[in-house]
């Protein structure tokens, strides 16, 4: 287990480095306007001076090396247009907590809603609750998130008579953003839990338990649900990934001062260093999510072994 964890960690770090390299090299191809806040007013010499001051005239491998060295010191560079000259790490440190709070709250809410829904769907397979749940899952999966987010904001705020925009101190304004963000994950938890539970219900040990006369409730809670929940564990950290696109929508819709809204802002202003930093941070979140998912799986389910088996495929 330890050896596996170590290997997995190393490969995650390597992947991260490759991703940073790709992002870095790709963003060097952008027009240089994105590094200046007053490009039109400068003459050629000033532009060159600024570029060499930023280290952009160096060959790309040197730039990349410098970037990695800075990164290890916690320095993500400085913003060029969004907040000229401000260190990006500080800007993000200000914005990140609210995004994390929203993400964690919505993840909790989606677990609270998704797991009972999935279990209810599996128990009433082919009947009322299953059909209702299926309609919900199809709707969430098929319709682009932007559409129902906007409609929730539009009608939700007027139905609950709460302000349309987010205010950190006013707790009522947290309801709709958190609720909207949790809808997607709720659907996927419900879908997977239903599938695993139905699979599990058809297994022999469940039939045996039923034949022995164990009550339906006990079978569901102690046998089916427990076993079906194990593969679900893997998805929980991964669902952080899905809250990313959700947070981008939600934060700019409700004008929440978080990372997602920040990304939309800096894209609009073509602030290259900021885009680069935020993209790298989101990639990190994704990788950490996958890594945690794999490690949790290994810890929880003793049947999964990480010893490599050689054999004919």
């Amino acid at each position: 287990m330890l050896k596996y964890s170590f290997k997995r960690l190393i490969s995650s770090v390597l992947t991260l480095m490759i991703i940073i390299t790709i992002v870095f090299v790709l963003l060097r191809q952008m027009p240089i306007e994105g590094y200046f806040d007053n490009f039109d007013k400068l003459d050629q010499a000033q532009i060159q001076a600024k570029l060499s001051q930023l280290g952009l005239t160096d060959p790309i491998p040197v730039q990349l090396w410098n970037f990695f060295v800075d990164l290890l010191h916690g320095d993500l560079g400085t913003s060029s247009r969004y907040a000229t000259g401000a260190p990006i790490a500080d800007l993000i440190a200000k914005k990140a907590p609210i995004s994390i709070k929203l993400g964690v709250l919505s993840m909790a809410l989606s677990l609270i809603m998704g797991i009972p829904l999935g279990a209810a769907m599996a128990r009433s397979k082919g009947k009322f609750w299953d059909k209702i749940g299926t309609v919900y899952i199809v709707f969430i999966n098929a319709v682009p998130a932007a559409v129902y987010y906007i409609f929730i904001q539009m009608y939700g705020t007027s139905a609950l008579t709460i302000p349309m925009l987010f205010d950190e101190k006013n707790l009522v304004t947290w309801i709709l953003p958190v609720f909207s963000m949790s809808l997607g994950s709720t659907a996927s938890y419900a879908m997977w839990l239903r599938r695993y539970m139905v699979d599990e219900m058809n297994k022999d040990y469940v039939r045996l338990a039923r034949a022995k006369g164990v009550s339906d409730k006990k079978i569901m809670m102690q046998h089916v649900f427990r076993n079906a929940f194990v593969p679900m564990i893997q998805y929980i950290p991964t669902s952080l990934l899905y809250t990313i696109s959700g947070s981008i929508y939600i934060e700019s819709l409700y004008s929440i001062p978080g990372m997602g809204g920040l990304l939309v802002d800096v894209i609009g202003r073509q602030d290259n260093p900021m885009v680069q930093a935020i993209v790298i941070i989101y990639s990190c979140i994704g990788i950490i999510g996958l890594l945690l998912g794999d490690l949790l799986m290994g810890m929880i389910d003793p049947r999964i072994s990480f010893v490599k088996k050689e054999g004919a495929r």
Partner: protein
Amino acid sequence: MPGIKDTMSQKLEKSVSAQLEQQLDSAAAINEDELFVLADYDQSAAEKAGYSNYSYWRSTLQVFFKNKLAVCLLVVLVLLVLFTFLQPHLPGQYPANLINTHPQTGKALSHVSPSFSTVLITAPQGAMVNAEPVKDAEGWYAVDNKLSTIKSRQKFTVVEYGENWCKIEYKNMTGYVKNNFQTKLKLPEDPTAVPYESRSNFNLDLYMSDVDYTNNGAALYVEGSKLTMNGDGTASFAQDAELRVLPSTHAFWFGTNNIGQDLWARVWSGTRTSLFIGFTVAFFEALLGILVGVLWGYVRKLDRLLTEVYNVIDNIPNTIILILISYILKPSLQTLIFSMCLTRWLGMARFIRNQIVIIRDRDYNLASRCLGTGTWRIIMKNLLPYLVSVITLRMALAIPGAIGSEVFITYIGLGLPVDIPSLGNLINEGRQLITSAALRYQLIFPAIVLSIVTISFYIIGNAFADAADPKNHV
């Protein structure tokens, strides 16, 4: 009663045994050689035993057509897709990018509410109006029945009192003014005791008759053939005539946007763009995904390399790749399609790779290889037909997925320019107006069309994938 039964059964038994004896006797009489005859090979008989009328595609379609919901949605979707192509060729459609302006004032017709007809009111034969030909619309006349405007606090004489209209005399003219809360006529205690002098604190419109043939004061439009001109700028209706808010019989069914473009045309044009994006992405996803997936699964030497590449790319959230590519390249249709293809083929490739690894070394493939079947033929004939269900499912889901990604990319400001209407564009434009309840139709119409398209593709895709799985054919 038992007696009868016994006799009946005894009779039957006797007759049966008699028959048996007869048969045995006749059999004994046959020669040994005649008893066993070699059967000749009969081709039609041989085919009869081995023939099965099972056909994969027919069974697939049969199973699919049993799913009523999916068939209904398929019909809806086919009609919708046909209509998006038909719509620009229908008579009386406004082009999607045309900025409609008012022919008289020249102002853009922005935020016109959705309506199915341009008719505001119908005027009876003989009614009098002022008429003036419209410059940019041949055969159309701008009409109104305003006689004059009475300035505020000017005195006039009421000669006839009504609930809604008062007939008045003012500077040698006899006409009608509205009697409502807006005009606020200063009336005596008993207003029906005519005539008396009166006035208002507001400017009053004096009409020729006790009907308002204007559009909140602006002119209405009518075809010239329905008018009889009097020569002094006035005209009377030669027949009953419909008075319209625009010099055109074509209404803005979905209203117009803020710069006066017809939303009806834009929604269908946008659906066309979005479907084009969806189909193109689905096609490239299938093409790239199958190609790479087959190589990955079938060629052992490539397995390690491609798995590593997959692990790296899969670790980056798709959204981020989408944003990054759209950010680096200039926003255009090609960029959008390219960035979506870049994120989507990977999933397809992995699906196919996993399936191929599972079935690659099954006995029938081993046998096929031993018999000297070429790799290409094995892939095309032995492996891919197994994957039809997976491939169709992923292709069908690629379409709503691509439309959704398009909405997302447009939302964060990296989407198509506004002169290429797409559902993403329209929704994004509509989103900016949600604070005003009267303008929400600009969001609701594109959202409804988009939801119909994506939900239909999703359900049809799932139903077809189920139907394409031979396990469901029995």
